[in-house]
């Protein structure tokens, strides 16, 4: 899932303070699961913003909240249109994709981000989320015993470890596991250590973000009139 965390209240307040009516829009998908932008968090932020605005003497800005199922799909955003018409600005508690989807959908309404989108990851333990995937567009987990060196090695080394691996920890941060130690340990447990003996080929970064924003197209799903958008 996409993991995000909330921006500080004063930062959000300063973005919206010059608008008269602001709609906070939460998202019921990834950011609900990572406890950053779901219905509950949207309610908390709404309350916090109203108080913060009042404390700086701004009594002219109204902040209301709502949450939609998914901010990254037009079908869900469409239902929001009548509500948005009543507001001067939107503050989205979706990920960066959600913010931009709202901005595309409502070209005449300013849209501000309420969250800092962090990464694609998993719930490691209650309240802790860890990054696992860099979305490089060319998955090679099969070569590395199911552990991604691109995401989890600070140097993105495909032929590791480097000399900075100490007792299973990374030299960049002693609290960070060395990805190559994890790869080695897992390969050993699986009995596939010999697969690490060959040199891994360089990564083709053209499939990553370096090639500009990407698109995935499924022609069989592109029904006339329903997409894809140009």
């Amino acid at each position, binding site marked *: 899932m996409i993991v995000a965390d909330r921006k*500080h*209240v*004063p930062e959000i307040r300063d973005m919206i303070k010059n608008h008269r009516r602001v709609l906070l829009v939460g998202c019921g998908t990834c950011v609900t699961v990572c406890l950053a932008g779901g219905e*509950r968090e949207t*309610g*908390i932020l709404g*309350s*916090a913003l*109203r*108080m*913060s605005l*009042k*404390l*700086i003497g701004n009594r002219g800005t109204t902040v209301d909240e709502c949450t939609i199922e998914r901010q990254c799909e037009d079908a869900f955003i469409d239902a929001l249109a009548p509500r948005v018409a009543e507001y001067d600005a939107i503050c989205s508690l979706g990920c960066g994709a959600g913010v931009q989807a709202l901005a595309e959908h409502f070209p005449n309404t300013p849209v501000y981000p309420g969250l800092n989108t962090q990464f694609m990851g998993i719930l490691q333990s209650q309240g802790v989320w860890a990054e696992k995937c860099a979305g490089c567009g060319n998955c090679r987990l099969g070569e590395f015993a199911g552990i991604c060196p691109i995401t989890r090695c600070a140097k993105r080394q495909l032929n590791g470890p480097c000399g900075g691996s100490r007792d299973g920890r990374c030299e960049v941060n002693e609290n960070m596991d060395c990805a190559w130690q994890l790869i080695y340990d897992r390969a050993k447990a699986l009995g596939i250590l010999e697969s690490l003996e060959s040199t891994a080929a360089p990564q083709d970064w053209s499939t990553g973000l370096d090639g500009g924003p990407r698109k995935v197209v499924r022609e069989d799903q592109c029904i006339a009139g329903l997409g894809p958008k140009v």
Partner: protein
Amino acid sequence: MDTEPVILAFCCHYCAYAAADLAGSMRLQYPSNVRVLRLPCTGKIEVNYILTAFEHGIDAVIVAGCLEGGCHFLEGNLRARKRVERAKKLLEEIGLEPERLDMFNLSSADGPRFAEIVTEMSRRIKQLGPSPLRSDHKSVQQGIEKATHQAQKASEGVKNDCCRSQACA
């Protein structure tokens, strides 16, 4: 504007609520500006309950749960403390004194301690002054009503027995 401070106390059924009752039975004196709200466990408190109260101009919020290790739901009071700490951080971000919010742990036999807690909070609020978010008496009353409603909702579907014995089951 009504400047008498108003304190909301979210009290666990098993300890602080009984302690408040005991304080009354013992004829102990404590400030009358506290509104005691019953929760089935402080683990039912939500950050939003606390923020909504402050938003309406309530001057202080107390969350009072069982002694650590003594929660009837094992760790409700520990979860409540974490939520109170989070709410305190939020208040700091907002620019409202976090001292206006506090969590206390006590047992149902601590009637005098309950009176002490309320007296201490009331003294603290007198020092800090009324909440800068308070606009009028009506808003404060709405805050109390909302908090009461939230506490009632939190109690729905929770059966609070007096103890874990078979007789109460």
